[in-house]
């Protein structure tokens, strides 16, 4: 059964969330990309099973969870950080929290612009595609621990900023 335009639109809309969910389970960008791709294929094959009166995201996340587990087993080299029941719980949370997380993502764009240039550049290097923290530390002449501490502080800074921004936006 071919996917309807509505189904395609839903799948398109939720790509980011699916990727984020998969990523939060495997914590590896390349593997997350591959598993997202596999998940998309499965979702399109299962289009007939989708009940359009229900929410798309929980259904898609359940399939993403299954694909992630299967993908990790196939790859063998990876460990699954969370057990199955915890992964399912996180999927439930992710579906429920979708609007909140969208708001946080938008706030992040503002917070990033407030970062001092040096911190921003560090973040750029860290999230550059295929970046490896160990290599980055060596290139910067830092110990791994020093770099990790800096990244941790910067992420906490961003998380605090996001919380503050959302709180300010909520004020009347």
């Amino acid at each position: 059964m071919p996917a309807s335009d509505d189904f395609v639109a839903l799948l398109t809309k939720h790509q980011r969330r699916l990727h984020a969910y998969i990523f939060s389970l495997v914590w590896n960008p390349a593997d997350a990309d591959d598993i997202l791709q596999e998940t998309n294929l499965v979702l399109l094959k299962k289009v007939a099973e989708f009940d359009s009166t229900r929410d798309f995201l929980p259904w898609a996340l359940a399939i993403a969870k299954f694909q992630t587990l299967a993908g990790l087993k196939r790859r063998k080299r990876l460990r699954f950080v969370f057990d199955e029941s915890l992964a399912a719980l996180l999927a439930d949370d992710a579906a429920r929290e979708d609007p909140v997380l969208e708001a946080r993502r938008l706030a992040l764009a503002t917070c990033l612009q407030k970062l001092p240039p040096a911190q921003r550049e560090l973040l750029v290097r860290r999230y550059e595609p295929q970046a490896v923290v160990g290599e980055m530390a060596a290139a910067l002449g830092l110990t791994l621990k020093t770099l990790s501490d800096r990244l941790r502080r910067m992420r906490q800074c961003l998380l605090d900023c996001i919380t503050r921004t959302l709180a300010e936006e909520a004020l009347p």
Partner: protein
Amino acid sequence: MTSRPDLPASALSRREHDELSALLNTLADGGLTEAEECRLREILDRGEPARRVFREFAALHTVLHWDYATLLAPQRPLASRSDEHGSDWWPPIRRAAAFLAAAAMAGAATVAAWLLIANPAGQAAKGGPLAKVTQARFLLPADGEQPLAIGQTLEAGRISLVGGAVEFLLRNGVVVVFEGPGELDLSGELSATLHDGNVVVRMPEGMQGFVVRTPTTDVLDLGTEFAVSVGAGNTTDVQVYDGAVITSASRRQEPTRVPRRLVAGEAARFRAEPKAEPVPMAFRPERFVRELPPDVGIPLGRPSATEEMRHYGPARQASIAVHPAPADMIIDGRLDEWGNAAGFSGTRDGTASCVERADGRMMYDEKCLYIAARVGDPLPLRNIIDPEIDAGWGWRGGGVQVRVSTDRQMGWPARGNSFSYFAQRGIAPSPEQEESARNPKLAHLTMWFHAPTKTPCLTIANGALFGELRVNPAGFAGAFVPDADGKGYTMEYAIPWSLLGCDDDPPQSGDVLAAVWQVIWADATGRMRREQMVEIRNPDEPLAINVWERAATWGRAEYR
């Protein structure tokens, strides 16, 4: 959806929050130990507040990955990767809301393409290394990079080439041919990122869904063979040989470009500017390296025709029949038992009038390989090379060399190059190639008549190394008989399979294995090689390779 009951929710203490934060950061940056994983699970099991911290952290981390180009990409070149890519493809920082709107517009058509994708069951990835090097030609690795060798296995990572081309077979059957100069990241079984250079992807029958990412364009395979090139200014060219692909703007670029479908016989150029429309191009099948030839040998230099004749003796025959031997074989140099067991016949220079000629024959039974030849030689049987002193040089004074493979598993063509073959060509042998070079079922037989002692001699070297040389080993029988007119001789040998390392599994009727002949003529002193001829040679191998250094040059020995 879940069977795990939430423990009573309670706020995290500052200490617990800090510990959780540290664990999540370690998880994000790699290096979480199993003990730390257990601890992370323990904390997350404590309830919703901990999972909220997890969700918020994971959301931050994944957004920074997913939206790198939109949220983080530098407006000025970075010291490392921007230098490699140029800075022009990085889009300006934009508000995330604008990104979302654009993504919603452009994404639908891309996803529509997925409707056509279906990886069949049974094509699931297997374990083991991600890729294996199956062919390589004229490889020039980038500075500081290790050379790639055929047979070498690879995990995900970057391959940098200054020149040449290499073919990989991914573990799911996808074939990738990468041509330098350029850089390619093999990311996984279904994706690769091409930073620079050319790549051709060929999918196994029935499989679809491979993505080649470039700085500006994602090319999604729909069951096909296609080529992608990244050139100056990150221009991306796509050419489809078979099937179809969907091209869309790189996910890390502002996705304002409408996805396009290209089918077999079409080609298009995608410029780096985000809103630039693709430009149709002429389809030029020869533009990309789609397949690398099999591992044919590499000639050394460009010898003249005369040199080729002297050094390599152009073979005119590619196979020899190895006939079953009768039960009553007597090794006396008379060849009475050989009957109609035809082999090969030829002269040194190919002319009928040449007096330097050889008729070579081979037979076998369950115990021995039999070799016989009638050799036209105006200066016959004068070899003075002493097997007890100079056994390795026995060929110099004239005689017959036959190199055989008895490896039934390997079949034909044989594999195995001497280390000198690699060294002279500046190639590092792979472990697999080193193993082939030591194959005890490759044997180099040198047979000559030691004139001073009137002794038929035999040396055997195994593998492709000429390591330990066995001289006149017990068990063989040999005989030389001069022609009555003094213009040649007949030789006959019986060599037990046990001396050839295969008495546990000797060649059988129907086998096609490898063999090559060299007949050597010496000067009047019987100590210096004068001429030679090579027969039974693999015509697919370049001529200017010595047969002793590469078993693939050996022709077919067809056991009847």
